[in-house]
């Protein structure tokens, strides 16, 4: 797989406190990677280390297939980012602020600032100072700044903070287009699971500094789709009944020797009857479906997203 971001045992410590513990992240080219975690899980710390804003205590960051060390300027010009609440000069307008950052980046594309502002729905050349912007406008300006130099990789730390539902939906479309039409890679962090579920191709779940899981959304959806959960006395009898008698092949055997049957066209009552008639005792039979939040709770062992 062509990894745009790859971390090997990435670690960050402040004194004795480990905020990021040996994380191995893999962000594939042209995909949207959702980094999920509660507040304080280590999402922003991880992103800061990737961007060189924060020193690395241990491990390595590779961007575009090469180590960042000694290569910073060449690598970081290909990245656009928004970290925490975006910071701009309060006495200047949005356009003036972006002109400054375009100059810093050495952006040569004509109308780069205008195009970036248009993408996020902010006016070009207006007289409103940044200090008068609403939270949503500030966030949009941050995204515009990230898009200024037409980067290959976007690293976005909770970019929809402060946006209303329409604004969130609009930005979701923007990100999806950037990925599907322009082949950009996006690493996006959030604690709004529903948003990530709509947008991400891959996800990583980070909890107390540890990357607990990395998975594609397809795999996750399979894990989360509806299924009939069955606990039986004889696994072999049950699987034979499923395959030969009921022609059900889409099932999995769990570690606790229970069955998850994803072919949910069969009614549980009929399934129960078939298993019992095959001398297979059924102790539990129920329809289930995990949503992403349930899955997240299961993985983190917590009480849900903060």
């Amino acid at each position: 797989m062509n990894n745009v971001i790859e971390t090997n045992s990435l670690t960050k410590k402040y004194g004795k406190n480990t905020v990021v513990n040996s994380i191995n992240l893999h962000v594939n080219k042209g995909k949207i990677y959702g980094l999920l975690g509660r507040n304080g899980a280590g999402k922003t710390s991880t992103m800061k280390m990737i961007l060189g804003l924060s020193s690395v205590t241990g491990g390595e960051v590779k961007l575009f297939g090469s180590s960042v060390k000694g290569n910073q300027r060449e690598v970081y010009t290909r990245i656009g980012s928004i970290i925490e609440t975006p910071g701009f000069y309060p006495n200047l307008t949005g356009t003036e602020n972006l002109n400054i950052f375009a100059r810093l980046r050495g952006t040569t594309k004509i109308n780069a600032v205008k195009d970036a502002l248009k993408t996020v729905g902010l006016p070009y050349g207006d007289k409103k100072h940044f200090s008068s912007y609403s939270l949503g406008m500030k966030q949009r300006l941050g995204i515009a700044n990230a898009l200024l130099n037409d980067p290959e990789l976007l690293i976005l730390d909770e970019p929809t903070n402060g946006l209303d539902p329409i604004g969130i939906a609009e930005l979701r479309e923007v990100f999806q287009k950037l990925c599907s039409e322009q082949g950009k890679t996006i690493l996006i962090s959030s604690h709004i699971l529903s948003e990530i579920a709509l947008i991400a191709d891959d996800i990583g779940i980070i909890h107390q500094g540890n990357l607990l899981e990395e998975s594609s959304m397809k795999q996750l959806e399979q894990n989360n789709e509806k299924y009939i959960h069955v606990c039986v006395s004889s696994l072999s009898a049950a699987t034979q009944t499923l395959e030969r008698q009921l022609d059900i092949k889409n099932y999995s055997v769990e570690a606790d020797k229970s069955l998850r049957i994803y072919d949910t066209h069969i009614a549980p009552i009929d399934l129960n009857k078939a298993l019992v008639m095959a001398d297979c005792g059924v102790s539990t039979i129920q329809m289930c479906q995990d949503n992403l939040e349930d899955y997240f709770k299961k993985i983190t062992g917590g009480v849900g997203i903060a």
Partner: protein
Amino acid sequence: MHNTISAEFMKIQKNKIFLVCSIIVIASAAVIVIKDLFFIEPPDDYQSWIMNSYVVTTLILGIMSGFVLTFLIQREYEDKTIINVLTAPTSRFRFLMSKLVIWFLWYAGVLLAIEVIYLIGGFLIYQGQFGFEGAKILVISLTKSHMLRFIATIPLLWIAILQKKIFYPSIMAALVFTGIEMTASNMPVQAGIVIPWSAVPLVGIYDVPFPYNTIGIVSIILTSIIGFALSYTSFRMQDQ
């Protein structure tokens, strides 16, 4: 580097701190001239007048310079623009150098304005006396001493980096440096010449002889090199 410095100029547009600090320094020079021209009997010789002017300039320019540098650094932390600047990307070295350049350009510009005002004042107050010789002494002594002073106060950059959003430590340090400079004439030369901030007037205005002038210049230059090195090291190690 050109882009980084150019961006710094763009940042200070519409900025009131720069304007206010410049006005205060330039106005203080103008007040001295007006006072001696119209209200108070000036010293008999222009050399004493130049010395008095230096003392006032030292005080006001020293403090305002501290304000300007503090503002240049502190606003980036306060407004959190430092994250956007560093991810542009801008190297930490270029960031510090661009701040140093802008600070120096402000300092040099204001110093030039002060010297023009004092030149005009010298010619008006000491008509027939001041002449080319007086002008030469004024320009050389003020330029030499204030340029040495700028170099000696580069450690303020380190303090500004360490303090991040807090405003007062670097201002206090600027006051301390200025205070030490102003007490130079009351110190024994052997002690004063080693301390970089008291070495400034000893070398720049009082023109101490060899080897004191060499020791003073070395002390000033070493302080600036160490100050910048500490600034860069601290900034590099700093998590944003």
